[in-house]
């Protein structure tokens, strides 16, 4: 029986008049790769931001391991040290080299010795295949390389869980693969991950659980084969049809569906 790393209970988030998240509950077990899918403006990114407390929630509770991180008096800066986050637009620190981007967290936040932090950062850069770009500044890296450095930066904090907010949406198509490969490798190594993505190939092959969200609600969740081939709800089927049409792998789907039937 795997431990539960992240537990979200009845979380709601309201911006002004709009309820962006409505009573969301979700559980992520150790080593699981949970993929959140759904139309834009559905609250997927907001949910990630609520998990690491970059956005405060209006009601509900969130636990990381056995600590309720939404309890009053909890130090949010400390909570974030244990939750890695990767953003759609990379957000590398522009004035720092790739190596310094990865080192700055361990050195400044964890107070790690500089030499040790450098070794650790080089290890993380190797993990994402960029040890030869250690001295490059963000402006000298391709989008795919930037995102891999951003992943290394998050990994350097040795997080309990990694959150990915549409990590490939800002990338040129030919650069998406290298980022997905790194994420797939992390998943295989047993990293616990929550991923918001429109990459259905990744969702189908790497996810342990897929959560379909729409209009601030969890419509349906389940194993990839259930969600993709036997969705319980019409809305899930419609969304998957639309998005696979967009990404041009309908033929695949049709074949698979016939196989399943």
């Amino acid at each position, binding site marked *: 029986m795997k431990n539960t790393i992240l537990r979200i209970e009845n979380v709601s988030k309201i911006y002004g008049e709009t309820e962006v998240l409505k009573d969301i509950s979700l559980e992520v077990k150790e080593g699981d790769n949970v993929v959140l899918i759904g139309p834009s403006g559905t609250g997927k990114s907001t949910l990630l931001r609520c998990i690491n407390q970059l956005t405060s929630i209006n009601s509900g509770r969130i636990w990381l391991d056995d600590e309720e991180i939404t309890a009053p008096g909890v130090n949010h*800066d400390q909570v*974030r040290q*244990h939750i*890695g986050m990767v953003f759609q637009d990379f957000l590398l*620190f*522009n004035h720092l080299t790739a190596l310094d981007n990865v080192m700055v967290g361990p050195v*400044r936040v964890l107070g790690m010795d500089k030499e040790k932090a450098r070794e650790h950062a080089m290890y993380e850069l190797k993990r994402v295949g960029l040890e030869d770009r250690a001295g490059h*500044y*963000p402006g000298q890296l391709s989008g795919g390389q930037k995102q891999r450095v951003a992943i290394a930066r998050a990994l350097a904090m040795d997080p309990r869980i990694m959150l990915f907010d549409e990590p490939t949406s800002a990338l040129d198509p030919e650069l998406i693969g290298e980022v997905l490969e790194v994420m797939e490798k992390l998943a295989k190594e047993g990293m616990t991950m929550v991923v918001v993505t429109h990459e259905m190939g990744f969702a189908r092959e790497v996810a342990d659980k897929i959560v379909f969200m729409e209009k601030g609600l969890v419509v349906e969740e389940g194993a990839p084969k259930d969600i993709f081939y036997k969705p319980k709800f019409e809305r899930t089927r419609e969304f998957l049809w639309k998005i696979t049409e967009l990404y041009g792998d309908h033929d695949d789907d049709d074949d698979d569906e016939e196989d399943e039937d």
Partner: protein
Amino acid sequence: MALFDIVVYILEGVGITIAVTLVALPLGLVLGIVFALLRIYGGKVLSSLAAVYSTVMRGLPPIVLLFILYFIIAGSINIEPFWAGSISLAIISSSYQMEIFRGAVLSVGQGQEMAARAIGMSRMQGIRYIILPQALRLAIPPWSNEAATVVKDSSLVYALGVAEVLRRAQFVGARTYQPLMAFSIAALIYFGLVFLTSRGLSILEEKTRIPAF
């Protein structure tokens, strides 16, 4: 009095002119950064106070402010005109520098702060290690403008009787009946100082540039 003597007499004031600038500019820098951070991160009350400070200070002629501040400062503590004048110039400059740094911090962008918070940095750590290093670089070009202004405005303390370049030029010009000559020499000196300041800051801008950014 020969031309040489006039030049030497005025040049003896250069040290004071530079000293006034070297007090006013760095002190204005520190105050400017603090006020800019209060304006952006200070919450409702402090932010509004900083905004009012900036609006009022920038809405008055420097020479008027200089007299007012001088009489406030000199009236409350026993202090030489040099110090009172330099500190007054620093306060005036701080309101302009505040706007320079505010613009620079805002143009670094909220994304950078969010990324800093996401790896567990506190707001202060994010400002110190991520926002300011970038904002200070962005501020160099507009700041060199303000540096030139402060070099030139250092001449205002002549009105307080401080024996800097302009004061000496006026004095020697009146005594020798060669005011045009005297003021022209002063002009050359100010131009030289401003020119060197701008060049120095261009070099700093070049040296601190982030590659490919």
